[in-house]
């Protein structure tokens, strides 16, 4: 009885996911093996043409796929480092402060992404506060171009991902008793080496979760490359959107989507495997010596 009622509870979420996620996904995968004629009409014959077109064209591979993955990975790296320091600062602050600091981290998520990115354009623009500051302090003798290039897109992606990284690392750091670091200090570890040997490895699950989240968000960036890249920094999701709406080639748009999905999943799997085997190998290696 209990087993059946539990299954019953799953029905709404499973049916929602099936109807609006799994079925469209299958449809998109199917679509990617079709083609369209010059007028945009769907030709339902099976073809590998879309994949051959994508995988043999240096433009798609380098300027699109590789750039998307590369920028997403770099942004993830920055997000995780910045997010880790943020989470650590919150965990080490007075308990009465922590809810407010968390609120501060969450605050950007309440603001619409387009609005946030547009305001970032103001900040990074030729007459924006960043350039004014650089010129005023003499670091740069005239405003430097901070918009419509890869740097701008990177800054935008980091801005989007950091709150998620902070939250996932904060949760893990909070569960690590401070006493574990103190114990390391009683056997002669300086605070820095106590952190490196105890807190850092123990917070690995948070780093892992945070970076998976950040990479997943960044690799699918859409608003950020459009607005901050200004059409000059092409991204997979933007290309898929344009192919579907402007070129009216739905099957090729689906192909771009499927390739992004497969590459993302492969990279995340590889990353998880690398981190897991690295952390697991450590104690074994040391005891062998």
């Amino acid at each position, binding site marked *: 009885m209990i087993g059946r009622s539990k299954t019953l509870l799953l029905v709404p979420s499973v049916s929602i996911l099936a109807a609006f996620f799994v079925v469209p996904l299958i449809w998109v995968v199917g679509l990617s093996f079709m083609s369209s004629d010059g007028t945009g009409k769907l030709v339902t014959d099976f073809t590998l043409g879309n994949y051959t077109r994508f995988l043999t064209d240096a433009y798609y591979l380098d300027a699109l796929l590789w750039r998307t993955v590369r920028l997403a990975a770099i942004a993830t790296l920055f997000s995780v480092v910045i997010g880790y320091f943020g989470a650590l600062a919150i965990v080490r602050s007075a308990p009465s402060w922590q809810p407010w600091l968390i609120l501060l981290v969450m605050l950007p998520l309440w603001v619409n992404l387009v609005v946030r990115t547009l305001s970032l354009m103001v900040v990074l623009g030729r007459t924006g506060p960043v350039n004014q500051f650089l010129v005023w302090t003499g670091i740069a003798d005239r405003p430097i171009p901070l918009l419509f290039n890869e740097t701008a897109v990177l800054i935008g992606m980091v801005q989007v991902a950091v709150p998620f990284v902070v939250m996932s690392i904060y949760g893990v750091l909070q569960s690590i008793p401070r*006493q*574990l670091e*103190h114990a390391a200090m*009683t056997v002669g570890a300086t605070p820095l080496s106590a952190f490196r040997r*105890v807190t850092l490895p123990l917070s690995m699950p948070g780093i892992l979760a945070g970076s998976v989240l950040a990479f997943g968000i960044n690799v699918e960036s859409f608003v950020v490359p459009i607005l901050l890249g200004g059409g000059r920094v092409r991204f997979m999701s933007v290309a898929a959107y344009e192919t579907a709406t402007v070129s009216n080639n739905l099957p090729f748009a689906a192909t771009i989507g499927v390739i992004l999905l497969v590459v993302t999943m492969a990279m995340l799997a590889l990353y998880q495997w690398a981190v897991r085997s690295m952390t697991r190998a450590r*104690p074994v290696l*040391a005891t062998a010596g």
Partner: protein
Amino acid sequence: MQQIRIAGVSKRFDDYLALDRVTLDVEGGEFLSILGPSGCGKSTLLRIIAGLEMPSDGDVHIAGKRVTGDPVWKREIGFVFQNFALWPHLSVFRNVSMGLELRKVSKAEIDTRVREALRLVQLDALANRLPAQLSGGQQQRVALARAVVLKPKVLLLDEPLSALDKNLRQDMQVELKSLQRTLGLTSIFVTHDQEEALSLSDRVVVMNKGVIEQVGTPQEIYSTPRTEYVAGFVGEACFFHGIVEGGNVLRLADGAAVPLAAPAPTGARIAAFVRPEWIKLETPSNGGAPAGVFERLIYFGQSSDYLVRLGDRQIRVKHRDGDRVFANGEAVALNCKAWPLAAGAQAL
């Protein structure tokens, strides 16, 4: 030689005085317990010796060297935490070896010393386990091995046995004591359990509200305490208040007389106490001994206690073999010698 000197150490947390000018010497090889209720400052004192807290005032010396300003990682101490504080991501071996790794000891020597320490606590077979795969008692032993493998100048133990259940705790007490003897380690053991303190220690320090109430051997602390607080904290005690007559009798307000086990100044208003096992129940006679009413017998298996009503309080009296049987509600007299406290003790 004094291994640890604590000279006038105070610790203030905002406006709360956790330690008030505490002075204490610990001899080399001594096992010293600090006993007191929670919040008396005993753990703070231990953490100051370790360097995990800094004193607001006063000095700490370890092995003849002033270490007051030294951070914890520069003091050569071993510390055992109440919840063991083992590193969950490292094997038993690596938990014990970390201190040696940090000291850049050679791999071969690390291996020998860790194996030796683990053998000492009978865990050599479990070196590759993770802490989560061990029982509470085994985790406790890893924590001990981690502390002693560095051959510290002093071993500091912060209620290390309180997380264990009763039977295991008694076993660990025996093991801890024999380990300490074997290594000749100067040890400070913080506890709120008076039996633990009395059974393990060479000397016991009783603390209350940030000050030391009394320092002495377990026998001194138990049988000849100086204050009501110490007498009441280290064991069951029945207190009498009255005026000393003839130097060795305490006359109570209700007219009863209790003989004193030590002389006290005649005419002084003092308190005295008796332990349950110092009292013998008797049929009332005309001797003027405190009179009470026998309430009932509590049977524990190994021993039994009597409950006796004495005016408005209920006291415990240890049952002894050969005692005659009392009926519930029967009038009894308390035959005992009380130990004088406060004013009486100062006259000794």
